[in-house]
Each structure stands twice: as structure tokens, then as C-alpha cells.
């Protein structure tokens, strides 16, 4: 790879790359992000390559290309395949489909109906990616390029205009100018706190001290959130370019990607991207002839959620346990090795090239007064179209969940959407029409957080959700300060008791009191926000807490200690299905004997409830009421009369 020494040479290189690519040549793009890989995408790719060999189509040079890409977001329907140049989108592709796709679509230009997207309500099929409602209702500035790029090829990134922003910044703008531009764009940090990025850059720029550092916080630890994973795996160059521009603006010459080790593919792709950028001279000395030097290293996390907190991340970068420290002083003043450091989230950095290329209005023209631009959310849980969605700030929750997400599966009722991970809160139905932005979410007791949106339905127990988050946090807390370590410990104890049917009068008030101390006196934001899921669910779902405590009842039939499964003797037709499937062998009965669950052996796994045929619907869930005693043995025989009724 030749070293590129000026913006002009970059444009020559880009022209050269494009001239060798025939836009009319068929290309099969297969998503090989971690999600699709989990669904077998590697075997799909292998099947295509096998087909090419069989039909002697060659790979890169001759008649058809195959491109292994990053995640475009429609994870629910993976493995995803898009055929270019027509942009025909096939979903849930299996290795066995490869033969048909190559012969029918690629060679004969015919569409395979059964692989298309079908709208569940209208039955309408969509051929092109852009027509699919899931994608159509998004604004995919950051993630839209993922399907067009092989993340292991910097040339693919250059082909879609990559590095033009860096060339512009280094060649036509002063560092101060870049800072002003980012300030004008009103870009707020996408990692959770939403602090104005431009202001943060300015602090770091103005702080005395050298060297200065820039860091990409890729420790995406919120369970349920995987936006950063998709960006890093799918288009690491965009983040690298943004980081380089930021380094130039702040006056830093050394950068780090702090990537959690649970994302091995992201680590691999970022490392490769850095190598390729170094080869072209987009990193290293005298970048694009500007005189600006910048090197970047990848640093892996080692399995600690708290290292997403910036001071904890810095400790980890220094090779120490990730214990946060007090702020002030802020990292912009005293950060890595006590020097001025600017840390931003992956998505924040990825926005920077777009702002430099298109101006501040690119962001300010989208969104609400306080929150500009787009945000990638991971829409998961009880929703039809689970995956990553990039939408403008200000879109309503209802639109995200129903228009883009396709609503709740199985005809169930929406209950809440959890936003912001363990620091956030659950938003109930009455707020579905709020416009999603940093401030509006805060008003209803949640936070934007990094963008995890977990949809919950009537089968979710909100007390269990609170317990779940505290259980998560008690292990992830660094344990240094007493309010967090001890406060969470005691709150978890209370919630566990409540879920086990041992709740007492006064528990809710004690939770609130503990929550207050933990929130106000903790050292860092992990402890400071730990009570949020508890306090928030008490605010909106107090009735569930009271049912658990006063009636020993779990309204959602989740808390095992509070539920029992019972076979209604009036409905059981002795079909033996549940008897056979029960993993604890807790059901007695026979061909004409009503089935009875032995409550002592029952593990409350719910299998019988799921497998009982719907025409019988004989298994019921009970909570807060005693289980009816079993029908006496001699009365369990079913005598089938002409209508098949009971004895």
C-alpha cells in the first residue's frame, strides 16, 4: 500500500479505487457481524464461495464479488444478504439457499420470493433494503454504510468517501476551528451522560500539560446494548477517523481504543483498521503532509462493567484495578497519567467525520432543541424487530417500538421499555408518546444511557427487573466506597426477600431510604445511579411491589417462590404431553387419568404451561392464592362419553 502524503494524493487514490470497481458488477454482501455469525452466517458465506467454484465464477476479479460486512442492524432476520447492484435484500438466508440465490438472482436476475421481507400486518413484500419498514423509518447516517463495507478493507471505506473529513480538517481548518465546529453542532456525548462533546474538547485543549491523550470508550457494558459493537466491527475506520480529527483539534498525539475483551471481533477489526491506516499514512508521522503526528493503540478491557466509567477506564489503561476516583479533577484536566485526556464514546467519535464533511447543520437540522442528530438504539426484548435502529432525536417511543420495531410479539400487551441500562429506568405505557431525547427521558425518571432499549411486556415482573439490575450491580461495583457496596448489598437483600415471598411492611420505604443514601453519597456514577431501577419501578409499578409484599402475589407470574402451576381437572384431557415433557417428572397421570402436578417436585420451569395444547388450555398459573388440593386418586379417571367429557 503506498503512503499517501497529501489530500490531493488521497483523492487520486480514491479515484483509482473507484475506477477499478464496476458498480454494475454483481456483489453479494453478507453480514458477518457477531450476531449473524451466531445464526450461521459463516456457513452461508462458505456456501456462496462453494457455488462460485462450482460455477467457475471466480471471486474478486471475474464475474461476481462476495463481501463480508458488518452489522446493518436487522438482527432479528439474520443471516442478512443484500445483492448489488439491485440492492435486493434477502432475510434469514440459509447455506442451502446459496445455490438458488446465485443461479436465480445473481445470474438470471430473478427474485426469490420466499426470502423477501413480508410485512406481518399487510402481507406486503419488500424487495429492496430501503423499502423494508424497519429500515425505512430510520435515519441511518452512522450505520447505513455497514452493509457496503468489508470492515477488513480500508479501500472499501475510501470508496464510500472515507478520510475526506480528515483531509479537510488537516488541510483546511485550524484545530480551534474544528473545536468550534463540534461545539456548534451541539453533539452531546453518546455514552450516557450526554455532555456536550465540543465543550469537553475545549477543556482538554485549553488545559495545560503535555502529552495529551484521546481515548475511545468502547467498554460498552450495559447489558442489552450492542450499538458500539456493531460500529466497531462494521466500520472501525469511521471511529478511527473521528478520533484522529479529535486528536488534531485537542493537540493530542497519542490515542487509545479501550475495547472490552468480550468483543473479540471488534478488537480484531479495530487492530486491523489501525494497521491499514498506518500503511497508508493516515496514522503515524506527518499525516497527509500536515505535520500532524498521531499514533493509536488498542487496549483490551478484562471483564469489568465499571471500566466504562471514565476515571475507572483510565485506571485500567494504567494497568490497575478499575476503581473510579473522585471528580474534580476531571480527565480533561488530569486524566491518563495525570495529563489532560479526552474520552468519548464510540458513537460520539463516529459522528465527527460527518460533522466535518457536512457542517454543523448536519446535526443541528435534526432532533430536538436540546438533543441534536441521530442516536443508535439497540431495540431488544419483547419486540418483533429486534436489532439496532438509528433514528433522529425527537422520535417518539411509540414510533420506535411500533413503527420501526413492529410492536410486541405474540399479541401481548406492552408494559414498559427499560432505557439506559442499570443506570436507567423503565418507562410505562403512559409515556409512549414522549419525544426521545436526553432531557425528556430524564423527566420521566429514565436516562438515554448508551442506547439500550429493552421492551417488556405483561409477562415481565418489574420487581424482578429491579432485583436483576441490583444483582448485576452488586457484582460489578468496584466495592471501594461504602454507600455503593453496602447500599446495593442491602437493597438486593430486601428485593430478594420480596421476590421470595418474604417481603415485609416497611420494605418499600427502606428501599427508598437506602436508595437515597446510595445515590447521594457514592463515589462515582455507578453507585450514584444504581438505585434508579429500584426507585423508578417503585414510582411507576408500586402496585406490583405491594402485591408481592402484602399478598405474596407476582402479577406477572415470574417469581418462582410466588407462583404455582396447576392442572385444572375440569379441562385436562390426559393427553400425556406435559407428563412426558416435565423435566422434574413431577406430573402423575396416565392415558385416561387426569394429570396432577406434585407441588413438592415442581421446579416452576413452566414447560407444562407452554406445551399444553391450546384447545385444552388446562394448565393454569396461580399466584397469591392457595393451590387447590389434588383431586382424589379414585376420581381421576376420564370416561369419554360421546362428547369426551369428564366423569
Amino acid at each position, binding site marked *: 500500500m503506498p503512503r499517501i502524503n497529501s489530500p490531493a494524493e488521497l483523492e487520486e487514490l480514491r479515484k483509482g479505487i473507484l475506477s477499478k470497481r464496476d458498480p454494475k458488477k454483481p456483489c453479494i454482501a453478507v453480514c458477518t457481524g457477531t450476531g449473524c455469525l451466531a445464526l450461521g452466517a459463516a456457513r452461508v458465506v462458505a456456501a456462496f464461495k462453494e457455488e462460485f467454484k462450482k460455477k467457475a465464477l471466480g471471486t474478486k476479479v471475474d464475474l461476481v464479488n462476495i463481501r463480508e460486512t458488518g452489522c446493518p442492524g436487522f438482527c432479528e432476520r439474520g443471516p442478512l444478504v443484500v445483492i448489488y447492484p439491485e440492492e435486493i435484500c434477502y432475510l434469514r438466508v440459509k447455506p442451502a439457499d446459496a445455490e438458488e440465490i446465485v443461479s436465480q438472482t445473481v445470474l438470471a436476475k430473478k427474485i426469490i420470493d420466499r426470502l423477501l421481507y413480508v410485512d406481518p400486518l399487510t402481507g406486503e413484500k419488500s424487495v429492496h433494503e430501503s423499502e423494508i419498514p424497519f429500515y425505512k423509518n430510520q435515519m441511518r447516517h452512522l450505520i447505513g454504510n455497514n452493509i457496503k463495507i468489508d470492515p477488513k478493507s480500508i479501500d472499501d471505506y475510501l470508496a464510500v468517501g472515507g478520510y475526506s473529513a480528515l483531509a479537510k480538517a488537516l488541510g483546511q481548518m485550524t484545530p480551534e476551528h474544528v473545536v468550534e465546529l463540534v461545539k456548534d453542532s451541539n453533539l452531546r456525548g453518546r455514552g450516557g451522560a450526554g455532555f456536550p462533546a465540543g465543550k469537553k474538547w475545549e477543556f482538554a485543549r485549553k488545559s495545560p500539560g503535555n502529552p495529551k491523550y484521546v481515548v475511545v470508550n468502547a467498554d460498552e457494558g450495559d447489558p442489552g446494548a450492542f450499538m458500539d459493537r456493531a460500529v466497531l466491527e462494521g466500520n472501525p475506520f469511521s471511529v478511527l477517523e473521528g478520533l484522529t480529527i479529535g486528536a488534531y483539534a485537542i493537540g493530542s498525539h497519542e490515542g487509545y481504543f479501550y475495547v472490552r475483551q468480550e468483543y473479540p471481533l471488534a478488537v480484531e477489526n479495530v487492530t486491523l483498521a489501525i494497521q491499514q491506516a498506518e500503511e497508508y499514512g493516515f496514522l503515524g508521522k506527518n499525516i497527509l503532509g500536515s505535520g500532524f503526528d498521531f499514533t493509536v493503540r488498542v487496549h483490551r478491557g478484562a471483564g469489568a462493567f465499571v471500566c466504562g466509567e471514565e476515571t475507572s477506564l483510565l485506571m485500567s489503561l494504567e494497568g490497575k484495578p478499575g476503581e473510579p476516583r473522585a471528580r474534580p479533577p476531571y480527565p480533561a484536566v488530569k486524566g491518563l497519567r495525570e495529563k489532560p485526556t479526552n474520552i468519548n464514546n464510540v458513537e460520539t467519535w463516529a459522528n465527527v467525520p460527518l460533522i466535518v464533511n457536512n457542517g454543523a447543520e448536519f446535526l443541528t437540522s435534526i432532533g430536538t432543541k436540546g438533543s441534536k442528530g441521530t442516536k443508535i438504539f439497540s431495540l431488544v426484548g419483547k419486540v418483533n424487530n429486534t436489532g439496532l435502529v438509528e433514528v433522529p432525536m425527537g422520535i417518539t417511543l411509540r414510533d420506535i417500538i411500533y413503527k420501526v420495531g413492529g410492536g410486541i410479539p405474540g399479541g401481548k400487551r406492552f408494559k414498559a421499555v427499560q432505557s439506559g441500562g442499570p443506570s436507567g429506568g423503565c418507562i410505562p405505557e403512559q409515556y409512549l408518546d414522549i419525544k426521545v431525547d436526553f432531557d425528556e427521558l430524564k423527566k420521566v425518571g429514565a436516562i438515554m444511557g448508551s442506547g439500550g432499549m429493552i421492551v417488556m411486556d405483561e409477562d415481565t415482573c418489574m420487581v424482578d427487573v429491579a432485583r436483576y439490575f441490583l444483582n448485576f450491580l452488586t457484582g460489578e461495583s468496584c*466495592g*471501594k*466506597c*461504602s*454507600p455503593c*457496596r453496602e447500599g446495593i448489598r442491602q437493597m438486593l437483600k430486601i428485593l430478594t426477600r420480596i421476590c421470595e415471598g418474604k417481603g415485609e411492611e416497611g420494605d418499600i420505604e427502606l428501599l427508598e*431510604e437506602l436508595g437515597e443514601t446510595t445515590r447521594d*453519597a457514592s463515589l462515582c456514577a455507578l453507585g450514584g445511579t444504581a438505585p434508579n431501577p429500584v426507585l423508578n419501578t417503585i414510582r411507576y409499578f408500586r402496585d406490583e411491589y405491594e402485591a408481592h409484599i402484602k399478598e405474596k402475589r407476582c402479577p406477572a407470574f415470574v417469581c418462582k417462590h410466588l407462583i404455582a402451576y396447576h392442572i385444572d381437572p375440569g379441562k385436562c384431557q390426559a393427553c400425556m404431553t406435559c407428563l412426558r415433557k416435565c423435566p422434574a417428572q413431577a406430573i402423575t397421570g396416565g392415558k385416561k387419568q387426569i394429570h396432577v402436578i406434585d407441588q413438592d417436585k415442581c421446579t416452576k420451569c413452566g414447560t407444562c404451561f407452554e406445551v399444553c395444547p391450546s384447545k385444552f388450555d388446562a394448565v393454569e398459573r396461580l399466584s397469591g392464592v392457595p393451590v387447590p388440593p389434588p383431586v382424589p386418586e379414585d376420581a381421576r379417571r376420564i370416561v369419554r362419553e360421546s362428547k369426551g367429557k369428564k366423569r
Partner: protein
Amino acid sequence: MNETLLKIDGRDVRAKQGMTILEAARSAGIFIPTLCHHEKLQPYGACRICVVEADAGGRTSLVASCLYPVEPDLVVRTRSEKVDKTRKMILELLLAHAPDSPRLQELAQEYGADRDRFDKESAFCILCGLCVRYCNEVKKKNAVGFFDRGASREINFIPEIASKECWNCKECFPLCPTSYAQAAYHLTEALAFPCRSSRR
């Protein structure tokens, strides 16, 4: 000499730039309780007993006075309903671990903390870290250290080092507010020190 003027409990206090609220308060004879603080050690900010209310930048928040640097026009309250409530709760949480600690009992009396509010916890270390930090910063031996995190965080002696260094030191013992340090040392000595007689 750079001086900063701030208000503590309604009084004007002159402090040197770079001082913490705790240092400034002490210089003015104002008392703030501490547990994990020690003059010979870097401030740690873990026990949070020293929290005070501070008005800065239009906001009021609880901050650890042992760490928070003084700022011009900072308004600090070392006692208030919020401060007292918080200290009481922290004490009650710590008393669940070490109900018999004289230091904790003394503070509990002042703030009306109930030692039986929470069920007793099995570990009687309150993780103030004085022993670890003293061995690290003053003695520079690192014979005792932190392990694990969250609710599983604990302090243990490192047998290979403690067996060589501690026998004529033990300066961390009197620092420990709960006597856990002594107990942990002796237990480690009995169960885990490398056996000298096996080297033959």
C-alpha cells in the same frame, strides 16, 4: 501564597490553594468525622463518612471533604439534615459488619445510628483500607492487599510477603477500626504461611 476564601458552616475560612475541604475545616478548628483518612496517607474517599454539603456552580451536592479541593466562594455545610441522615445510614450499614467497633460505636452515638438496623454480615472488615494503604505507601512492602470487587471485595494478607515482613512490623494493627487486620494476619499465619520446615 495562593489563598482561597470559602464559607464553612457560615464562617469565612481562608485556605491555601490545593487544600481539601477537610484540611481547610481542620485549620479553622471545624470538626468533620472520618474513618478511612490518615495524615500519613493519600486521601482515599472510600468510607464517605466525611461527606458534606457543598454549593458550587449553582448546584448543591454531597461531596467527600477529604478529597474535594477548595474553590473560591464555595459554601460548605458540615452538618445538616441531609448530611446527618447520610452519615447515620452509612454507619448503620457498616455496623452490620462490625457492631462492636469502638470507633463506629462512638460515631453511632453522635448520629443516632442503630447497630441492629441491618442483619449482621459475616465479614467484620469495613474496607477502610488503612492497612493496605499504609503497607503500600508508608512501609512500601505490599504485604496486605485488596481482592475481588463489589460485595465480594475483601482484604487479605499475601502469605509469601507477610511471612517475611510482618513479624517485626504490625504497624497496621492499631490503625484498624475493627481489629480485622490482626485477625486476618493471625489466620493467614496459621493457615497459609509457607512452611519453613519443608525446606530441607
